[in-house]
């Protein structure tokens, strides 16, 4: 039981970055943009927050840090970084009508490189005398829980042991699901993704919707990177540590059949699969088996992909114009 109790919070901790990425990509894909740059965007979101708080922590010193600023500076920097990445993607694919797959892959190359470059060179570039990027003070603000959570036993451990970004992720996912399904804006967004020509004829501004959804999606995804480094990794940046979570987030979009509310459970499930190998006993002489267990999330994704494509239900299909650019004069 104690093993299970420690498993759930860790699964959630792994799942939250995926949830941010997944929610962001769902909003993006609903507008018909397939943004394969999400892994890069999440790196940029993470490193932008790190850069912001690195300079804040080093300029005022750990003692005199203000909790409000310590949270707002990284969050705003992160949002700004992923906002710019989103604008870049939209400018290339919506305004210049470039191929979405290639633009996305280029954004991932750029974003991961950007993250690793500044992660590896920030100290050198800023000429500050610190050994590593360890923002433990800022991280303590991000991972702060309610003061009475520790007294609530298993309930507190499972439901209340997370920093505020984790709850934000769930709120954002629920809100995204409601807005997409229930409101007029959501209806218009879906119309743009299904048939931009029809939406255009209805008087919906296709370009504005695509820009807005994609940029918003990137900003949400960027927070996933920020959560990872500030909360999960305790403010320590190490290159390539974020790994392939961005790609898993994109896979989750299909897993959840484009529904952000399902994404909440699905990402926690995937978070659990991601660390399951730590809980499967292998014995000291067969450490290599752990490497095979690490395949589990990917194998599950593939099975889900195949099963959903075999069932081929109409309501489980991607937005009809996903991956295609819209040009009014092209009929």
């Amino acid at each position, binding site marked *: 039981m104690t093993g299970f109790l420690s498993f759930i919070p860790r699964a959630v901790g792994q799942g939250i970055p995926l949830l941010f990425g997944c929610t962001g990509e769902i909003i993006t894909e609903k507008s018909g943009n397939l943004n394969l740059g999400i892994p890069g965007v999440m790196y940029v979101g993470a490193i932008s927050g790190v850069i912001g708080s690195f300079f804040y922590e080093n300029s005022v010193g750990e003692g005199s840090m203000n909790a409000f600023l310590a949270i707002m500076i990284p969050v705003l920097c992160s949002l700004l970084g992923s906002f710019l990445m989103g604008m870049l993607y939209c400018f290339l694919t919506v*305004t210049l009508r470039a191929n979405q797959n290639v633009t996305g*892959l280029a954004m991932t190359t750029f974003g991961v490189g950007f993250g690793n*470059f500044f992660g590896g060179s920030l100290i050198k570039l800023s000429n500050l005398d610190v050994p590593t990027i360890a923002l433990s003070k800022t991280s303590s603000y991000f991972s702060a829980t309610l003061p009475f959570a520790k007294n609530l036993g298993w309930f507190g451990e499972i439901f209340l042991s997370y920093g505020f970004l984790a709850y934000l992720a769930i709120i954002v996912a629920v809100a995204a699901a409601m807005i997409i399904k229930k409101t007029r804006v959501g209806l218009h967004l879906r119309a743009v993704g299904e048939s931009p020509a029809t939406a255009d004829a209805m008087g919906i501004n296709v370009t504005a919707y695509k820009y807005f959804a994609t940029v918003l999606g990137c900003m949400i995804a960027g927070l996933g990177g920020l959560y990872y480094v500030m909360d999960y990794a305790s403010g320590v940046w190490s290159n390539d540590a974020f790994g392939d979570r961005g790609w898993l987030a994109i896979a989750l979009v299909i897993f959840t059949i484009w529904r952000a509310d399902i994404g909440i459970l699905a990402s926690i499930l995937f978070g659990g699969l991601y660390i399951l190998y730590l809980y499967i006993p292998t014995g000291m002489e067969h450490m290599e088996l752990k490497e095979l267990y*690490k*395949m589990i999330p990917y194998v599950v994704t593939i099975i889900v992909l*195949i099963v959903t494509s075999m069932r081929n239900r109409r309501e489980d299909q991607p937005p009809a114009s996903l991956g295609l650019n819209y040009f009014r004069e092209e009929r």
Partner: protein
Amino acid sequence: MEKKIRVPLFHLAKREELSKKKKFIIRIIAIVAALLLCALLTALATGINPLEVYGSLVGGAFGSVRKTWITLQDLSILLLISVALTPAFTMKFWNIGGEGQVLVGGLATAACMILLENKIPSVLIMLVSFIAAVLAGALWGLIPAVCKAKWNTNETLMTLMMNYIATQLVSFFVIIWEVPKGSGKIGIINQNSHDGWMVQLFGSKYMLCIVVSAVVTVFMYIYLNYSKHGYEIQVVGQSINTAKYVGINISKVIIRTMLLSGALCGLAGMLLVGSINHTITTTIAGGQGFTAVMVSWMAKFNPFTMIPCAFLIVFMNRGAGEIATNFGLNPSFADIMTGIILFFIIGCEFFINYSIKFRKMSGGRS
């Protein structure tokens, strides 16, 4: 009363096919602009004179005989992977699993080298590892292709996930074969016997990769443009309905093309392990499976155009890598530079396909 008609300041129109010369000029302008921006950023990061940046770039790629050879070798591998992915892209099958297909090819080669050492002659090991690598790569391409053909499974995500399965498979075997135990890496395989190390052509260890990729590039150009298979791939890529109408068996084309694509990626893996590194790690493909997607697209799926495209990427990578090393910066600097160049090239396609028509100043009515 005369009604006023609002005419927008400008509107876009699809262009007629531009002449080759004009397309070329637009692309060159984009690359020059990208290089200017790259130099500016490098100057900001390192504090050296922007003009010197270009000198350092060239120095990094061609500074010595050895550096030149390595640049050419890198170019040949990237070119080989790009060419390998191309037939799949031509039929609009977005295979971003080049990375995994290269890895399993490399893994198969490493397995042959390790397991067959001192058992059969080196030449036979080469032959067996060639066959094993090609089959392994082909298998890795076959799985998503069958799912696509049978159930229309999303190939982009499926090939992507196959990458990670390949990565874990490699790290599994690395732990099994690690030398010494507990080090977590294999080290140089067959360091003393050189069993299974690929042959050197013309007395140079770099030539094999270059020759192989040159042969494959020419083969692919002919295959895509002058063979029945190539024709079928083009038709499937342009219109599934047309393909059905003329009686092309689409499933067969998808599976056959992915077998070829995966097999050639496996070949690249064999070269990486058997001829260049003589070891295997999970990062041996180094993201080239993804870079190759962009090279192939930039070249508009023409194998010969891929040579300058791949060269540009490799040149920037090695040059920027050298600058980063010299200034104690992180080598990912090269990725940022590559990204910037790609953005410019992706963006400039717009000016090739569309023209911007401004409102005529006089009249204002149309």
